[in-house]
């Protein structure tokens, strides 16, 4: 007799297989949730960082930049910009200076709008970018250029 191949069996395997792998995905999610606190730098989340994230979102920075490699590819990766621009000695000043100095107005060059951030908001954005730069991303990006 030749092999049977019924739609009902295909349907049962569809239900069984998807539920099976979704449960597996949930199991891995649970394990990830337990393992995260040791590596996601969440202990350094301060109110400044929270405000900084809100400023990052409400000005749609992800529309041009990438953060940990995810976002738009028009402007540099900012996940490690704090370290790239000097870290604890000079990183903050560089970033704040850069944001205030925009747009450069050089013809033909990519332009970043000026978001008219107050000094407190600038400190918050720097706090957020510092927090992001200390997340354990398995040594990504490959180098400081990001």
């Amino acid at each position, binding site marked *: 007799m030749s092999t049977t*191949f019924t*739609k009902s069996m*295909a*349907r049962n*395997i*569809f239900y069984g*297989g*998807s539920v*099976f*792998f*979704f449960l*597996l*995905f949930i199991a*891995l*999610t649970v*394990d*990830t949730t337990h*393992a*995260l606190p040791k590596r*996601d730098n*969440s202990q350094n989340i301060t109110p400044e*960082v*929270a405000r900084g*994230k809100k400023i*990052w*979102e*409400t*000005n*749609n*920075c*992800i*529309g*041009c930049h*990438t953060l*940990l*490699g*995810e*976002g*738009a*590819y*028009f*402007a*540099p*990766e900012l996940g490690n910009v704090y370290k790239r621009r000097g870290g604890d000695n000079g990183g903050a000043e560089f970033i704040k200076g850069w944001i205030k100095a925009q*747009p450069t*107005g050089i*013809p*033909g060059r*990519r*332009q970043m709008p000026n978001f008219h951030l107050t000094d407190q908001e600038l400190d918050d954005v720097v706090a957020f970018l510092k927090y*992001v730069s200390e*997340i*354990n*991303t*398995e040594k*990504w990006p*490959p*180098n400081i*250029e*990001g």
Partner: protein
Amino acid sequence: MQYKSQAVAKPYFIAAIGLFIGQIVFGLVMGLQYVVGDFLFPAIPFNIARMVHTNLLIVWLLFGFMGSAYYLIPEETENELYSPKLAIITFWIFLVAGALTVVGYLFVPYSTLAEWTGNNILATMGREFLEQPLITKVGIVIVALSFLFNICMTLLKGRKTSISLVLVLGLVGLAVFFLFSFYNPTNLVLDKYYWWWVVHLWVEGVWELILGAILAFVLIKVTGVDREVIEKWLYVIVTMTLITGILGTGHHYYWIGAPEYWQWWGSVFSALEPIPFFMMTIFAFNMVNRRRREHPNKAAVLWALGTGVLAFLGAGVWGFLHTLAPVNYYTHGTQMTASHGHLAFYGAYVCVVITMISYAMPILRGRAANSNKAQVVEMWSFWLMSVSIVFITLFLTAAGIVQVWLQRYSDAPMAFMAVQDKAAIFYWMREGAGVIFLIGLLTYVASFFIKGETKAAA
């Protein structure tokens, strides 16, 4: 058209193509901004154009999916749609909400838009693809609920076929996973972890169910092959989709702070993700070769086969190029990702929606297929768009390789902007291909207005 209420699909298809044109226009604006940095600055900065481009893509595909569902569910369940009126109301709510959102993006500074639209109550804005204001997100949920209610009530009353079952599973999955867009924790790693539940589990999960169901429906109609065979293979393909795609989410968890084991799980299962696309291509060609009738709508058959091939190429091959962790370590966040994105979205989802539109539109207008002259123009549009998107993908892959070579892989990495200047030649060529794509799209629209002798209605 067997059921009057299938006519509800027509406005959805028209709106879909209209928004598609808008998406491409803004794509061209961005393509130029890549090489002429201050083009349209400060009126339309790059990030605004990008939001409009990506949001229009998703909205017009959703219009396409809903139109396809409104067309095929009555025919599959063999009874009239539960409430055509509700479908039209939903259509206008969704269109107005979408239009208002785009107008808001273009004419209101994003931070002000956030102030006005309740982002302080629940902050959900400012994340890629999910930039919509809170009220728009709530609007999308309302539209989705009324749509699903309408479809499910029709399904409950009528014949339950595997195609309508898989389609509705995909649509319900789409609605459920969209709810994760309301979850935006301060912890960036958690934010990104569940952000991928919206994005990945959409396009590499439930959307593939919708893709499979629509393709299977069109293939039954144009090839006349026995429904039992087609639905059997549909189940096998969507099974492979979910068993590889669900754990395949891991290939987004390499570098965002999640534990290291995701590099193994994500790589292994996402490496298997091209299999369902390969099976879909074999399935499409096999069904067309074993067709038992010569359907007059040759263009729709071409689109269906194109869907299989280009989905496998874009989502399968180009996805596999940079899915393995050791490779992704260098290509993550470069133009390589953008090249995969373009061909995958076009090959899998744009093509299947246009396949459905090409199949259904003539019938909605009272004839089995457009005239041969119109179909020739439509086939020209298929080749113009498909070839130009492949070239866009090739040029972005080249730019990605330049970027990886100079900025990521070398011992003396160059700064981001310097590398972008080095890749400018490819961005210019990509823009050229983009213009040809727009020409192809306009050709597609023109094909609907070309007269000529037509076959009788199916």
